[in-house]
Structures are given as structure tokens and as C-alpha cells.
């Protein structure tokens, strides 16, 4: 798991370049206590998304990584912005948010899992 995380971060670093360092200073989203979480990556672990609310500037690429032993996916709760393939363990899905707005989503397999991305 650790190894996967490191490579995920490395990949994010390559893609996002300056964006990543910016992210670490990004204003934590409302209700987010843990400021140390990589703001551009959403971890799926124990049937939940972390952070549950992620606030990013427009143009940001967000990457979800599944760290559970079961598959999950990402589906928009409103609209059709997000619809990922099924992600098995350690698999990732990325999406670049270009338009400001609130993007609620859930796991279409385990619909109790809900979260959102806020694009400013």
C-alpha cells in the first residue's frame, strides 16, 4: 500500500508540477480537519472517500486511488460529469475539473459512499 501511495504521489507530481506544491497550502475544505492530506488525491479506504470534501482551483486534476480490497467506482450524484471505470485494488482514476462548481459523487457499487469536489 505504502509503495502504491508513493508512486501515486510521484505521478501526481509529474503531472501537476507546480500545482502540487500549491495544493499543500490550499485552504482546507469546510469540515476538513486534516490539512496534511494531499489535496489533489482522494483515497478510497474502508468504504469511504478521504477527504470527503475536496476544494480545488479550476483546471485541477484530481486522482482517486482505491486502497480497499473490493472494487469501487466514481459516479456523479447530479449530472453526468463523473463516471469512472471500476477500480480494483490500487487502481486509479483521474479527472480534470475545468469549470467551477460543486460536484457531488458516490460509489455506484456501494452507494452509501458519498463525497464531493468543490471547484473554485
Amino acid at each position, binding site marked *: 500500500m505504502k509503495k502504491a501511495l508513493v508512486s501515486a504521489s510521484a505521478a501526481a507530481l509529474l503531472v501537476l508540477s507546480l500545482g502540487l506544491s500549491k495544493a499543500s497550502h490550499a485552504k482546507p475544505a469546510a469540515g476538513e480537519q486534516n490539512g496534511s492530506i494531499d489535496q489533489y488525491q482522494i483515497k478510497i479506504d*474502508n*468504504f*469511504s472517500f478521504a477527504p470527503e470534501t475536496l476544494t480545488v482551483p479550476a483546471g485541477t486534476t484530481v486522482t482517486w486511488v482505491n486502497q*480497499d*480490497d*473490493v*472494487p469501487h*467506482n466514481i*459516479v456523479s*450524484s447530479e449530472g453526468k460529469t463523473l463516471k469512472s*471505470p*471500476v477500480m*480494483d*485494488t490500487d487502481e486509479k482514476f483521474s479527472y480534470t475539473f475545468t469549470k467551477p462548481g460543486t460536484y*457531488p*459523487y*458516490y460509489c*455506484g*457499487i*456501494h*452507494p*452509501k459512499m*458519498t463525497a464531493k469536489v468543490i471547484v473554485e
Partner: protein
Amino acid sequence: MRRQKENLILHNHNHDGVDRRGFLKCMAWAGTGALFVVKGGVLRSYSLSDPAGLAAGARAGELSFIQISDSHMGFDKAANPDVVATLRVAVDRINAVPTAPAFLLHTGDISHLSKPGEFDTVDQVLKSAKARQVFYVPGEHDVLGDDGKQYLERYGKGTKGGGWYSFDHKGVHFIGLVNVLNLKAGGLGTLGSEQLEWLEDDVKGRSASTPIVVFAHIPLWAVYPEWGWGTDDSAQALAYLKRFGSVTVLNGHIHQTMQKVEGNITFHTATSTAFPQPRPGTAPSPGPMKVPAEQLRSLLGLTSVHYVAGKHTLAIVDSSLA
């Protein structure tokens, strides 16, 4: 036999077909497989790890069938790196039952990732079961990525909508429901209005003395909604069924046995043949539960049912693969 006579609900004072006193009369947590015996309307269970009780049940039953569930073919994580082997053990157990079951019910999550090869493997392994016919309903793992298209191509012949159907066998009316499609954000399992209308029509005009067996993947009762272990519109489905003298609801999904009696309705969940899941609320999530290798098979299993016409009990037997 798990259920004793004093647990039967003889009176319903609410006139709604539901007797609250009947709640939680029987809750079996141990992971076992089960033999269901339908006796005139009420399900009775015998442990498959109790060969004497099992043989008696099989002799008495005019109809017996076996439920298996959650084979999760393709799963290869620490909780069970060899789900083919444990499914094979389940088939061996089925073939060891003295009276061959009429058929198998598979209550979904046949595959882990809806891959064609996963379905193929399950089909191949189940071919060696003495009971040749298998009735399926899909789990959420069987409809990944294509909203159940592949599932319907493989298993949906003669079914309606997303794969629901009913059939009669020896006087018992069987109803296979699908509650893993079109899941809504924040919700539980869903049957949907089209299926509910079909169900209402399907049971309309049937005699209230017809024993009913309903099978679906996600429990049709609120086992633990916090983990998604329930079905949002199951109450509507059960409302159509409560006038019947005997309703048995068989589910999978939660990888452990649980039983509840509510009015004339007996709810029962089966163990998985692949991996156990934790008891509600005892872990941070319902993910696969890793147990010491020597304990694994004691937490996997299958379920058998017997039915004797003219009596009022279906017998359910859970048995483990240990």
C-alpha cells in the same frame, strides 16, 4: 434445528401481518451453510454440520434445494486467495447431501469484477454439482461497468427487466428479485417501481396458502443500513407478500448468516463461499475479513432448504465448509 416451536408467531395483534414480538427471534451469527426445509409454509433450518439432523430433514422434505452465495470468483486478496477451491468444497458438500437437492439458488456476486472468465469458472465448477439447475440473481459485483448487460446475456433468459422472474416448484412459488441496479447516491439496494409493479401482479390472485420463497442479493430487511445492508423499497415488496401464510426471504451480500422472523415472513442470509465479512459495526467497514487460514472454512458455507407440503414450516440449514 435452530428454531423451536415457541419462536413461531401464532398471533398477530397488529393486523398488519407483522408481529413485532417476532423480531430477532433467531439471529445466527456463526458462518455456516444451511439446508432449507419448506414445511407447509415456514422455513426450518438444520445444520449441515449435523449429519443426523440433516438426513432426517432430507427424508421429511418433499422439496429440498440449496442456496449458495457470494462466490466472488476472481477475488484473490488475503481474506481468501483461492476462491475456486472453496467453491469446489461447497459443491462437494452439496453432493454429499443424502437426498439430492432439486436445484441450487445462487444469490449473487457470482463474480468479483464481472469478468467473463470469472462467470465461466463458476459455471464450470457448478457443473459438477448433482443439482444440475441453478437459479441466479445478480449481485452488485455481477453488473459492474455495463448495468448488467452481460449478466442478462448469460443468466437472464426468460427473465423480466433487470433479470427478475418467478417460477413454481412442487407447490412453492419462487421469486427472484434484482436489487443491485440503478443504485442512488446515499441509498441502499433498490428494487424500483417497474419491478415492484411486476411483483404485485405476479402474486395477485395466488392463494394465501401458497408458500413463497423470495431470493435476492442484498437483504430485503434493514440488517445494517450504515453499511448499505438493506433495500430502500423492500417494505413495498413485503407488503405485497404479507397476506401469504408462509414467506421465506433468502439473501446474500453480507457474507454471514442472520435470521429474523417477522409475522409470517422469515428472513435468512447465507454465508459466502469466498470470504467472511465482519458483524455489523464491529469493524471500520464491511470489507473482506481476514481470519487465520485454519478458521476460514468455518466462516464460509451454504444453505439448504426443505419443504413438506401440507405442513407449515420450511426448514433452513446452514452448514460451514470446515
